[in-house]
């Protein structure tokens, strides 16, 4: 594997991209989970699929090479995220309604674009389930840019985001501009989703944002530690998932997600065992 890694540029692109998304997806995912927005990632990934299908259609029918599926997916995702925020404020009492509306809208658009292009076959398959060979050097640079943007924004607005997630009322009383921060946050989520899709695929991208966090939340003390463990679990899943996916010629989306599920189950049972052990010790 190591020699192949240095021989083939596509493997390097995939691996570096994997490391980047293994970092930012669980990082932002921690905020997504504690704000109970886990399903929004799913909705946005389906909108991104609509954008990707649009980009593929443009490429195939009109040969417009400058609208790559990566960028059109990103634009759709960001626009979708704005709709989510809008819908959530329209349906204040039924905020989860935004999810099926946006999700079905995304799938609807995808179906229309796919049939307009008379199908895409293999390309689309790799967008749905991820691929080890689909990341170009240009994609890698774009994803690196997204990573830097996410990191800078999170660093600058960490305390505001934390406050809003923990206790929105208190945050507003303290003079935090809740709407602007929400907006910023949802746009970041859209960016991270569009960055992750090449590797894990549309159907599984939300898993990379939520499963590592689900494992971390069981064992972490405090919010910063939750983020730290989430990122560690995310990176582990991506690295193990990419290597096994490459060897067994399986789309990495599947192997990455199954690795995170394994980590999640292991964490839950280890935590249970540990609690049992300490309780017995306390009794003795």
């Amino acid at each position, binding site marked *: 594997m190591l020699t192949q890694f240095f021989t083939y540029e596509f493997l390097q692109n995939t691996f570096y991209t994997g490391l980047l998304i293994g970092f930012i997806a669980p990082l932002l995912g921690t905020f997504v989970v*504690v704000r*109970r927005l886990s399903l929004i990632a799913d909705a946005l990934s389906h909108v991104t699929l609509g954008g990707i299908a649009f980009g593929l259609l443009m490429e195939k029918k009109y040969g417009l090479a400058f609208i790559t599926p990566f960028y059109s997916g990103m634009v759709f995702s960001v626009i979708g995220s704005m709709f989510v925020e809008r819908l959530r404020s329209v349906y204040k009492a039924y905020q989860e309604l935004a999810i099926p509306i946006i999700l079905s809208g995304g799938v609807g658009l995808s179906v229309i674009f796919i049939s307009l292009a008379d199908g895409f076959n293999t390309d689309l398959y790799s967008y749905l389930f991820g691929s080890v060979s689909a990341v170009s050097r240009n994609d890698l640079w774009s994803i690196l840019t997204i990573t830097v943007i996410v990191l800078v924004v999170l660093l*600058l*607005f960490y*305390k*505001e985001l*934390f*406050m809003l*997630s*923990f*206790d929105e*009322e*208190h*945050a*507003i*009383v*303290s*003079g*935090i501009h809740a709407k602007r921060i929400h907006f910023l946050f949802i746009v970041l989520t859209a960016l991270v989703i569009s960055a992750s899709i090449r590797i894990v695929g549309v159907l599984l991208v939300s898993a990379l944002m939520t499963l590592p966090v689900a494992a971390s*939340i069981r064992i*972490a*003390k*405090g*919010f*910063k*530690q*939750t983020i730290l463990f989430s990122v560690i679990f995310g990176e582990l899943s991506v690295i193990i998932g990419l290597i096994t996916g490459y060897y067994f010629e399986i789309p990495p989306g599947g192997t990455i997600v199954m690795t995170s599920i394994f980590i999640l189950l292991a964490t839950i049972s280890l935590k249970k065992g540990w609690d049992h052990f300490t309780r017995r010790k306390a009794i003795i």
Partner: protein
Amino acid sequence: MTKPLVSMENVSFAYDNKHALKDINLQIPTGAFLGLVGPNGGGKTTLIKLLLGLEKPQQGTIKIFDKNIKDFKQWNKIGFVSQKANSFNRGFPATVKEVVSTGLAAKVGYFHFFTKQHKQKIENAIEMVGMKDYINRNIGDLSGGQQQRIFIARSLVSDPSLLILDEPTVGIDTENVQKFYGLLHRLNEENNITLLLVSHDIGTMTNHANGIACLNKSLHFHGDTSAFSNLTEKELSKFYGHDLNVVTHQH
């Protein structure tokens, strides 16, 4: 006489043409421990929202630190512990320290980070409410009474001059309620923090507060506690609009 810390003059507020508050004249002197009582729907929460600048009065003026609330900027001088502090997400993975630090965020401001002094303040506030041993525990692992102390610490961390508490003892057992009032007295007497406490519990309030304001759309009583205790039940029922059982706690 020193200027009152908060002063409301002829303040009225209506939701959709329905009066929630009418012609309120209320002064809170510096150092007071004022209890605000009144029936549900009597406008207590609305009054707090006005004081916190979350709603604007349609009539009248509100002054805080002798400054019109429209021009008031030092919001970190006002601490607020809400009733909802009891209903936050209990599974939230945050330590006591992290929760208390959010009380400083407004003071620190956008694009700024916590300094050593800020961290010291956070620790002091936690110590003040007697929760130092729990500093690195997850907030969800604490009891309701302990959590309420943490929320007080969160509002203390920015050195407020006025602390507003909205039904802070709901869902806390009697023993811890007593401890809680002990803490409030210390804050009021030793740290010289002015308190505005909203509660249903008239009995406990008359034992602790040194002034009472009774609110049912308009202010029916505003004076010191002994004068309030001398009111007959009949007079009290009149502003509640229904019969009332006053339970007086004896110590």
